[in-house]
């Protein structure tokens, strides 16, 4: 036990105060509350992408449909971990379920999460059913056993059964869209409902979060798909990527508009807190917000995507920029919001911990954060061994055909 363990207030280690802040005021919501909405956002975005194929019949997205679906599961599994790490009493997290207090936005988490999880899991099962059955019949040993378990005892691959599967997938994918929106819009609500933080307190919050979720989810799929295919040395058909880029650019525009409206509104109504908020926006967080979040994370990638003769490299760069931009946005919202003292007369600065002997400090630091951000990719790698997601690819000829079809469509 460290000597200072009991005299160091939670938050005091990583908060630096300036001017007048209340004595109990610290950055209480740290890096994990930045990562949590980032991850759930990626989940929602990746899922919406797979639904575009299943529900809206965007054939050109076929090669990425399975991939984005499985990837969203990998992300979804990791989504609650930052929340757990954030709690000072994680072993009691079950209390939320034992005595849920429904006036609290967080209490609905388990319910929404489990609903969504079951939709994603069942959709994956139906999508991969034929593959699983084939493997179960062909393979032996441990993997064979695994696939046999995964079949859940159903070996019917008749045309009729497959047709029913398709229908079910369509229903699940459709139900998944509102569920994904709720999952993430609700995260926005958690922030939007905190009435003491002016930067969060806007009814637009759920929608702002939702739009940034979609752009980050699509962007992460573009980046991972290109990287994964290149790694596997497959032929990469540009058609699905182009289509994803189109989706990305539409949602980028909406997201930018929403965030812009929010700021303009604050500036125009200029309530009591606008003084401190404008100092945050144009001084303290100016680089992070204006340069990284808006210019590099939204405006630049938008033009990279919509300018003619889009190339694979440009798509990759644009999507990476979007990912960075959305992460910065989460940071700016969570940390920036708490940086303004509730006294409106002071600032708090967040210094993310790196190494510490004190576990409570270490767990709020960079190392777990990096681990958490890597974990979904590791999970995807493992899942890919069981349910290959990079297999459904277009041959060069199919690719050309898809290109043809796409060029005849307006959207």
């Amino acid at each position, binding site marked *: 036990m460290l000597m200072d*363990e009991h005299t160091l207030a939670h938050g005091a280690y990583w908060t630096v105060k300036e001017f007048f802040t*209340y004595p109990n005021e610290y950055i209480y919501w740290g890096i994990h509350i930045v990562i949590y909405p980032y991850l759930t956002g990626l989940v929602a975005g990746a899922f919406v992408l797979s639904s575009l194929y299943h529900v809206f019949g965007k054939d050109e997205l076929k090669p990425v449909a399975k991939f984005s679906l499985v990837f969203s599961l990998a992300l979804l599994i990791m989504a609650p971990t930052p929340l757990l790490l954030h709690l000072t009493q994680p072993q009691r997290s079950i209390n939320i379920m034992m*005595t849920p207090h429904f006036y609290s936005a967080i209490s609905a988490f388990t319910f929404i999460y489990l609903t969504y999880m079951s939709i994603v899991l069942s959709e994956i099962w139906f999508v991969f059913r034929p593959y699983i059955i084939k493997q179960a019949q062909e393979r032996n040993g441990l993997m064979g056993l695994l696939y046999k378990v995964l079949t859940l005892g159903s070996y019917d691959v008749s045309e009729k059964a497959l047709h029913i599967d398709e229908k079910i997938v369509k229903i699940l994918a459709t139900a998944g869209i509102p569920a994904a929106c709720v999952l993430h819009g609700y995260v926005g609500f958690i922030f939007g409902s905190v009435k003491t933080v002016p930067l969060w307190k806007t009814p637009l919050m759920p929608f702002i979060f939702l739009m940034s979720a979609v752009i980050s989810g699509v962007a992460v799929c573009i980046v991972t798909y290109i990287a994964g295919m290149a790694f596997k040395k497959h032929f990469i058909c540009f058609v699905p990527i182009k289509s994803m880029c189109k989706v990305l650019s539409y949602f980028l525009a909406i997201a930018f508009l929403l965030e812009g409206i929010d700021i303009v509104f604050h500036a125009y109504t200029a309530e009591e807190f606008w003084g401190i908020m404008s100092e945050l926006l144009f001084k303290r967080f100016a680089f992070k917000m204006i340069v990284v979040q808006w210019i590099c994370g939204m405006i630049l990638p938008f033009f990279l995507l919509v300018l003619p003769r889009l190339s694979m490299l440009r798509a990759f760069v644009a999507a990476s920029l979007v990912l960075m931009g959305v992460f910065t946005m989460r940071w700016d919202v969570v940390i920036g919001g708490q940086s303004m003292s509730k006294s409106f007369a002071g600032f708090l600065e967040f210094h993310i911990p790196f190494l510490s002997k004190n576990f409570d400090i270490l767990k709020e630091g960079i190392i777990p954060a990096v681990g958490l951000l890597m974990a979904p990719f590791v999970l995807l790698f493992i899942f890919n061994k069981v349910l290959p997601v990079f297999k459904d690819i277009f041959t060069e000829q199919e690719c050309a055909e898809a290109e043809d079809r796409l060029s005849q469509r307006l959207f």
Partner: protein
Amino acid sequence: MVTRRDFIKAGLLTVAGMAIPISALEMFKPEAMASLVRSFSEKKRWAFVVDTTKCVGCGMCAKACKLENEIPFEAEVQRTWVERYIQLKDGDVIIDSPKGAREGFTSNDPYGHEVKDEEITKQFYVPKLCNQCEKPSCVQVCPAGATYKTEDGVSLVDRSWCIGCGYCITNCPYFARFFNPVTNTADKCTFCYHRITKGKQTACIDACAFGVRKIGYINDPNSEVFKIISSKRVAVLKPEYGNEPHVFYLGLDQIVR
């Protein structure tokens, strides 16, 4: 020709029509005032009065609170604290609360810069504590129901049930809450619930030599807080948040945050 029947009908309608706006008024009546007119037997409700005009910033209250409630003395968190406000002639306002004033204000150099007497137009101290809100936004957001409001109006935290999410801390407009470094759960002023329910005063009231702080039932006509709140001009902190705080201040200034 107006028959008697029509007359009664119209009369009843008028009465019914008027009843709606009157009941609407009843709805918007501030809870604090409503409890003043309600009889004592109906509902006991704790309230606090702080007379800022008498406070000298000695910080004995903050010190006593820490000792009474076993919050590590050196930890930079306070259940109650005192803020100093200095209005300068050039229009600037300096606010500080070094160590939550648990060691008192001993020098005239906020943040290490000396302020000369002739630069100051006014200076005063404002003690703060949990406002035991009628509509506590901290209780509203607790996902586990670990923090709750008692029948007599005091919000408490169940330390054995709190998961430590910090939602309540973030959602208190007054930053009355913090994480207790020993229990690692949310913590805050309880109005010394363990003392007041046994007929004692709070630790901070006992420690204050200047009679700044007072506690009592807001709806007991014999209590001092009732007398002050019902007859003097009092104000609450940040009423715009709608929490309906129940710590009433005498001599509050517009520069107070």
